């Protein structure tokens, strides 16, 4: 037994961290926040060149001999840097959906291109401000055509292909669509976190093909579980950054003749961040192991990691602002990048309440087994 990453994985994490510090300085994030770019193209190019988009893939599909544990450490650094790239959409969602649900031909067609960054992919699930499930999904797939609207679709404005959850004769199927193809129109939408681009994607008789054999609501659930672990690492990276920012600011900022970090009201708040972050990290490590071994515990481990990391990042990002005081709520300070991203990540695979429900359902199933 061994409940930590290996030395090699830790080196990869440090290496990834150094790369992002250079290529994704916080001014890069600000440029995307304030400008019109959907993401930072240089950074994305660099990420692709490093092979990160191929991290967890088998070598036959262009993988570079790493696995999910390596993808987890990279995710943590991406989260720490609040990196403005379509990484999560393409790697955790589209790639995973094809890995888990695609036919051999589909894997051979798409995975190497996704691995090489020749294609950006995404998953289109949400249809607006409500839960997305077999009862509420309205986008249809009939006779090879998609109809309806998905929003917000992460990176829907920049991705080349999307895996779309649509109603068909088999309940809900995942279908693959070329986003630059006929019958697809897309429009960037404003969200709480402009450093991650989102779109409203409308289909009007857009030609698409079913992923694998279709009827794959269960594949979607697996993809969400797997992404939950990876997003948890992004959340932990972000939460850790918030704690470090708060710490640094509270040591250097003086009030009443002393550093504000010497006041227990703030000290204990930061201690609480630490506690939440450590709990999240421990739960996420278990999730990483379950992901990397495709263990039966994955649904429980993934939900635990997501719940714990969502709580940690929410708390750290909002209290980091509070500890920064007046500066904290200005546009000019960087605190809001994390506050935005924390909320985005807490909703991107469904809210904490949905995941708590999932967790307990899985524990009930274990109990009655």
């Amino acid at each position, binding site marked *: 037994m061994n409940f930590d990453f290996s030395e090699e994985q830790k080196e990869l994490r440090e290496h990834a961290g150094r790369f992002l510090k250079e290529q994704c300085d916080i001014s890069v994030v600000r440029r995307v926040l304030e400008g019109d770019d959907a993401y930072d193209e240089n950074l994305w190019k660099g990420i692709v060149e490093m092979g990160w988009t191929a991290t967890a893939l088998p070598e036959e599909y262009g993988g570079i001999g790493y696995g999910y544990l390596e993808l987890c450490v990279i995710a943590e650094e991406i989260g720490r840097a609040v990196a403005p790239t379509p990484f999560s959409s393409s790697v955790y969602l589209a790639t995973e959906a094809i890995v888990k649900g695609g036919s051999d031909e589909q894997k051979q067609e798409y995975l190497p291109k996704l691995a090489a960054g020749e294609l950006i992919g995404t998953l289109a699930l949400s249809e607006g401000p409500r839960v997305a499930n077999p009862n509420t999904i309205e986008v249809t797939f009939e006779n090879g055509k998609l109809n309806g609207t998905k929003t917000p679709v992460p990176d829907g404005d920049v991705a080349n292909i999307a895996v779309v959850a649509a109603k068909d004769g088999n309940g809900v199927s995942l279908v693959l669509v070329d986003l630059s193809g006929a019958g697809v129109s897309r429009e960037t939408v404003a969200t709480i976190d402009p450093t991650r681009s989102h779109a409203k994607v409308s289909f009007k008789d857009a030609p698409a093909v079913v992923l694998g054999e279709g009827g794959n609501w269960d594949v979607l659930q697996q993809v969400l579980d797997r992404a939950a672990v990876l997003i948890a690492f992004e959340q932990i990276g972000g939460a850790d950054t918030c704690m470090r920012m708060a710490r640094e600011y509270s040591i250097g900022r003086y009030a009443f003749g002393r550093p504000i970090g010497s006041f227990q009201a703030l000290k204990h708040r930061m201690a609480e961040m630490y506690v939440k972050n450590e709990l999240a990290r421990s739960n996420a490590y278990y999730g990483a192991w379950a992901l990397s071994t495709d263990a039966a515990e994955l649904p429980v481990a993934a939900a635990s990691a997501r719940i714990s990391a969502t709580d940690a990042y929410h708390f750290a990002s909002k209290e980091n602002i509070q500890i920064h005081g007046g500066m904290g709520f200005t546009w000019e300070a960087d605190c809001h990048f994390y506050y935005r991203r924390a909320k985005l990540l807490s*909703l991107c*695979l469904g809210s904490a309440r949905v995941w708590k429900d999932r967790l307990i359902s899985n524990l009930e199933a274990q109990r009655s087994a």
Partner: protein
Amino acid sequence: MDFNDSESEAKFRAEVREWLAENAPKFTAEAFRAREGGDTLDPIKLAKAWQGCKADAGYACLLWPKEYGGRGATPMETVIYGQEEAKYPLPGGVFGIGIGMAGPVMMKYATDEQKLRYLPKLLRGEEIWSQLFSEPCAGSDVAGLRTRAIKDGDDWIINGQKVWTSGAHYSDYGIIVTRHDPSLPKHMGLTYFFLDMKSPGIEINRIKQISGESNFCEVFFSDVRIPDSQRLGEVGDGWSVALTTLMNERLAVGGASPPDFDEVFDSVCATELESGPAIEDMSVREKLADWYVQSRGIQLTTFRTMTALSRGQTPGPEASIGKLVTAKKRQEIASFTMDLQEMGGVLMENGGAEGSVYQEAYLSSPGGRIAGGTDEILMNIIAERVLGLPPDIRVDKKLPFSQLPTGDA
């Protein structure tokens, strides 16, 4: 104990209702735009027009003496007026600092002549006031301010920088605390003035907040002259004058900006969750109940304060609890309601009837926990001034200000 109107209160309420029914609808944003023409609305102009209309009818600053344009009303009449006015979507806010802070401090410290010159225009909204206390290195620790005032003949010359000044860019006058002597301990070297915000040497920059709004300004002072006649209180009394002002701020800041319970209750009633209507979900119901009792509790606490006022008591720092509870609750409500919207909760334009009220509140609510006294300062005030608990250990009380640790390298 009587939550119903007395006979005279019922009469007053009827008058207010009638007057509002006739006048208020003319001053909603829509009505005003329609009347004034033009595409964009000038909110300051609208607010001034409404304030003038209220002043004409004697409904501006109900508690103020009639000589300054007030009504000399009872505290309960202000409660009644507030309840009735809240039923209309009226402009407001820009006079809060003038009426809530500058007015009372002028009433206490200015000369009779100054009061007659400034208070009626302040009350009518003809002149807008702002408050210049906070500085980059003096936020929660207001008394750590560094803006210098040096006596020069009958004037004082001001140099330094203020920050978090609401509405400085559209203000006519301001109240300001300065340091006249850094060799004295920090609370003893302060002097308080009011000044003309158009004075030469003042430069104003607006500060953009997370939410994208710019409600606050930075104000730079370069050799700005203030006549000694505009000093409020004695030289060196600035801290005690400022404390009075801040106490009034907490009373003034108390109001809850939406979304509060009513809004979230409406939203929940219109939301379907995976399991069925959101309003049937026990987790949702428990949170709603918690917010209801907080929201209602704060409202009723304000009423209790008004009763104390009616009985001739001075409301104390206990009024701090309003902002404390309200600001935190607003952040929770925003986050919670976004969660109910699931993946779509991140959309800033979600096309629904509610627009993006919760998303905007999510972005503006962190400021609410900081501006006008942070959560932590308010907790300290309750602990020390209401409960009489021992103060934090103070290392900054006795040393000359110029020798205090500042963390500057």
